[in-house]
């Protein structure tokens, strides 16, 4: 709790370095709709003028009425005519004011929504282009929050913050001019509460913003603790930890409630102080005004005009708090949003990049060095291999040895630090990303399923492929029978994140997805870990035909998955420590042979039937 207060210092609310820059940039964004902006200002000006016209008309009417009293029935007809005119003018002015207010309100919202839509599209597009290194670093939930909440914060400021500020300035400007004409001293008194209220309101806006940020942190801790409790309900039950969990809940909830209450006190306290200032000024106006009426410097109508204008002014003044609050919010939201929008993807097409032309289908790694953040820990050093169409390369090694990294480098999801990766002699950095990725398919251990049908998920890489191909791929991946048995077959929705499918089924979907892409190079990154041995063998059988037209890389823990590869490389700490065929590696009696013995011993011990070391077939 304590350190949270420290991190949320007021400088987080008002970072004077970013605030003008970000708000300025936001305002420029709305100028992309110049005629709407001009119209909005026009209508706002009109509304402000009409806001001083109405009090004036009312004052005039009161004067006329008091004339009636003073002069009696003599001028009756003329005065009543005059009152009728004033009445009609009031209706007209109110109608016009309403129309103008509605119009600028709508235009403000219109501009803000358009800018919001522009930003949303730009954000979406930017995220699609940013490379894996960025997505590794930034949590997806954080990005989603930026795309929703930060965007909303920016939009709200453009919609109401800017317009409210403009309206207030115009209103104060015209009002000061008009009131000083009505009666200088009284008019000045009427406006005397304005600076005070602006100051209090602005301060409240900033304070509320600060407390809000603290509250958000507290609420997210509370939500997280609730969510984990529910997700881990079995653990909670298994350990009978109800009371423990409730005490955790109470700790977060009490802290949040306290912040809520502080916010309430700030808001309500300031509001009542502002209201008191307003009424205090009104007492002064009535006092001085009353005496000036008695001395003939001011008419009753003039006093009415001043008082009415004060009531009109009250609301926009109170909103200064909101303007400040939304400005501060927009500054920090905009900052986070622009930070993403201004990023350059680490991996992108080189200038003059050409499409990859695959002829022989020869993939070559030459002395490749790689680290995720240079100068960081080296993940791969001096890795070289060559693989051609129709051949299979197996990659094995302990966790963290760099196996999966190789898979990601082939499709250039990261750029290497040294060496060269080429396909048919073309450096992959010199070809377009889209042609490269069309040539390479990755099948990963975890498949991401989209909230759509099985058909669309399998055909994700090639949405216009015909159904035959989809079914063919599914059949090879040994998932066709399962899918065909579903109520709606390939049209079945997989549900959010594919909850209805088992781990093995998901992996088989992933393989089918990779096959539909018909790549020149296919990488199975531990893609059969959750698939039982029998099914895996069937998949390999089905793949026989397909693999003839492509280069295949199999990354696996289970040696039986890759023992048939034409070449196997053994990685340790990012280096190739052994290479060769299965038989040769067994002969070398190194890491591979040790791993083989370990896996076989585990199985032998368990009395299982170990695959034959030479053929891999189950005896």
């Amino acid at each position, binding site marked *: 709790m304590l350190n949270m207060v420290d991190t949320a210092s007021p400088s987080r609310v008002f970072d004077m370095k970013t605030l003008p820059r970000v708000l300025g940039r936001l305002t420029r964004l709305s100028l992309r709709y110049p005629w709407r902006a001009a119209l909005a200002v026009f209508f706002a000006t009109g509304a402000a003028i009409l806001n001083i016209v109405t009090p004036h008309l009312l004052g005039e*009417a*009161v004067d006329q*009425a*008091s004339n*009636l009293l003073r002069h009696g029935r003599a001028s*009756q007809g003329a*005065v*009543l005519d005059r*009152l009728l005119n004033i*009445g*009609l003018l*009031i*209706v007209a*002015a109110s*109608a016009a004011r*309403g129309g103008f207010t*509605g119009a600028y309100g*709508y235009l403000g*919202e*219109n501009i803000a*929504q358009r800018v919001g*839509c522009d930003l949303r599209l730009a954000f*979406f597009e930017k995220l*699609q282009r940013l490379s894996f290194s960025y997505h590794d670093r930034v949590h997806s939930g954080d990005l989603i929050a930026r*795309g929703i909440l930060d965007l909303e914060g920016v939009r709200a400021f453009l919609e109401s913050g800017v317009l409210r500020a403009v309206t207030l300035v115009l209103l104060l400007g015209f009002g000061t001019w008009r009131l000083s004409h009505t009666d200088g001293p009284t008019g000045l008194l009427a406006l005397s509460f304005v600076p005070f209220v602006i100051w209090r309101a602005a301060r409240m806006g900033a304070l509320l913003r600060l407390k809000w940020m603290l509250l958000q942190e507290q609420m997210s801790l509370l939500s997280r603790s*609730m*969510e984990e409790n*529910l997700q881990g*309900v079995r653990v909670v039950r298994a350990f009978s*930890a109800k009371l423990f*969990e409730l005490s955790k809940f109470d700790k977060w*909830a009490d802290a949040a*409630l306290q912040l809520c209450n502080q916010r*309430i006190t700030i808001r309500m*306290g300031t509001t*009542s102080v502002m209201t008191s200032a307003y*009424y205090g000024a009104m*007492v002064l106006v009535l006092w001085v005004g*009353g*005496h000036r009426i*008695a001395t003939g410097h001011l008419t009753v109508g003039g006093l*009415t005009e001043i008082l*009415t204008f004060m*009531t009109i002014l009250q609301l926009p003044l109170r909103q200064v708090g909101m303007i400040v609050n939304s400005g501060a919010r927009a500054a920090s939201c905009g900052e986070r949003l622009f930070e993403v929008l201004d990023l350059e993807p680490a991996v992108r097409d080189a200038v003059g990049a050409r499409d990859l032309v695959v002829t022989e289908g020869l993939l070559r790694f030459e002395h490749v060095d790689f680290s995720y953040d240079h100068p960081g820990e080296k993940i791969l050093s001096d890795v070289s291999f060559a693989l051609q169409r129709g051949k299979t390369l197996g990659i094995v090694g302990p*966790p963290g040895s760099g196996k999966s990294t190789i898979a990601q480098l082939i*499709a250039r999801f990261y750029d290497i630090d040294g060496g060269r990766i080429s396909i048919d002699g073309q450096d992959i950095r010199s070809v377009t*990303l889209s042609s490269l*990725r069309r040539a390479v398919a990755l099948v990963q251990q975890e498949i*991401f399923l*989209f909230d759509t049908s099985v058909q669309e998920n399998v055909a994700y*890489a090639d*949405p216009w492929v015909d159904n035959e191909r989809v079914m063919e791929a599914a059949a090879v991946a040994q998932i066709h029978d399962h899918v065909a048995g579903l109520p709606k077959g390939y049209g079945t929705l997989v549900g959010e994140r594919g909850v209805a499918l088992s781990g093995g089924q998901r992996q088989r979907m992933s393989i089918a*997805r990779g096959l539909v892409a018909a790549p020149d190079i296919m990488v199975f990154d531990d893609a059969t*870990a959750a698939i*039982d041995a029998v099914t895996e063998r069937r998949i390999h059988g089905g793949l026989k035909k397909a693999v003839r037209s492509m280069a295949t890389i199999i990354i696996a823990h289970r040696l039986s998955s890759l023992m048939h590869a034409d070449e196997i490389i053994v990685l340790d700490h990012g280096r190739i420590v052994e290479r060769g065929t299965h038989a040769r590696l067994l002969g070398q009696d190194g890491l591979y042979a040790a791993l083989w013995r*370990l896996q076989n011993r*585990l*199985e032998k011990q*368990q009395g*299982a039937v170990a695959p034959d070391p030479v053929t891999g077939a189950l005896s």
Partner: protein
Amino acid sequence: MRIPESGGGGRAGRVEFAERALAEEVFASIDPRILRRFLGYLGPYRVRLVLVLASVAVYTAAQVGLPLAIRAAVDSAIGRSAGSLQDALVIFGALAVLNGVFGFLQDWSAARLAQQVIFDLRRNMFSHLQDVSLTFFDHTHVGRLMSRLTGDVNALQEFLEQSISAISDFFVLACIICVLLLMNWQLGLVTLTVLPLLVAIRAMWLPWAQKKFRRARDSSSTVTAALAENINGIRTVQESRREDLNFERFRILALDNLQALLESAMASQLMVPTVDILTGVSMAIVVMVGGRAVLHGTLGVGAIVAFIFYVQRFLDPIRNLSMQYTVLQRATAASHRIFEVLDVPLDITDVPNATVLAAEEPSIEFRHVTFGYRPGRPVLRDISLRIEPYQCVALVGPTGSGKTSIAGLIHRFYDVWEGEVRIGGRDVRQVSQASLGKTIAMVLQEPFLFSGTIMENLRFNSGADAPSIIAAARAVNAHDFILRLPEGYETNLRQRGRNLSIGQRQLLSFARALIANPKILILDEATANVDSFTEQEIQRALRVLLKGRTSIVIAHRLATIRDADRIIVLDHGAVVEQGTHAELLGGDGLYASLHRSAAGSFDD
């Protein structure tokens, strides 16, 4: 506040959560009973509620009195009143002070009360969820529950905050109407004609506008969902080169959303000129009709000024009502969903005078147990088995054979349909759940860790001290890798331990179970992909963990199965074979055939 009657009465009752994803809007009509139940949460705070209402009363009186003081001031300024200007101003000042103080008291205490009620409600939900049976969680998405605990609770909060100001608005409106009629009933009546007019216009506008608002909301959530999905699946998107196509699709959604938002903006802005025109009309009426009344001597100039003040205010409550109605609808729907959670029946509760399980020897016995999750579909059929204290039994069988159900029944996550489950010779339904929890611990297939430090995770609710926690971590071979982490035992687990490998997480969950030190341990062995190196460590840790306890292992790995004292083979909810590994291999039953087909593991 008038609440329209609606046909929502007979719709209550128990509802299946899982099937109701899309039914939310159904509850958009307002059900008074729901509101009444909700207001029941105010019960414990009666005193504060009275304070709020008293403040509202004083505040309203001050609000309505202020223009009257202005009238007195104006009249005395132009010499039309017996009272002095000074007196009028003193009264005005006093009213202003009352207005300030009680306005603050009203808003402040009401908002705090609302906040308190909201937090109470959330705690009630959360606490109730700690007691509902696991059957409920089996077919309820956590995400949906979370949206009730956060989104719906927030909707209620918004409603409560606004309804307080609405109530005081309406008090003010009612008093203004009275004062207007008292000052000059003819002028008052004519002025008030705009009120029904506004109500009528609003009634016509509302359904049309709400359609626009709803469309805007719906399309916004579609856009949000599309954005979230694309971000979550960004790797697949890039691997499949779907960037351009996905952008095009997203653009269509975003533009449609923009259109909907603009229409809804138009709809809400249309009310602005309407209210302004009507305000203008009422002012014109005051000026014209009031002027005539002044002429006839039935009205003073000060009264006209007061009228103008009143007229400026009195349309506000009605304008706010349009917002209020939407909020009220949303709140009703939200309370419906909240009470649905609160109404989930508690199937499993302690019997009165439940005994405490303490000194009994940890034996487990199933006597003719029949059990299932859905009526008519038993998962276990007439199962009887006995596990002696300190024995280790492996449960083996194909998916759906009932292994996990047996584990759940021992811990009384569910109640049996027929027969009984006995721990230490006592029916689990007769002992307290708390003592059952102390006796039995479970290690789940998917190791689940919480946010927080490793130390906090290992301690969990055991209250154990640091040395014994470290000793346990050593025992299961987790100590070394923990020390290699940046801050050792104080390392924060990000994202519930995603920064650890699954094998490491499994070892931590072993240590957690060891620290809880239960007499009976139920272990659902992880099948997830762990490499051969880690698997050896896990097997070693397992032996430490199981020592000196009665244990049931839902076994997938042959190594674990071989080590068990006894193996129970299940199929279709019945025990088909039991015995030691050697005995079972010798026979020619399901175990032998499972064993033949599955090389290395018993997963299917």
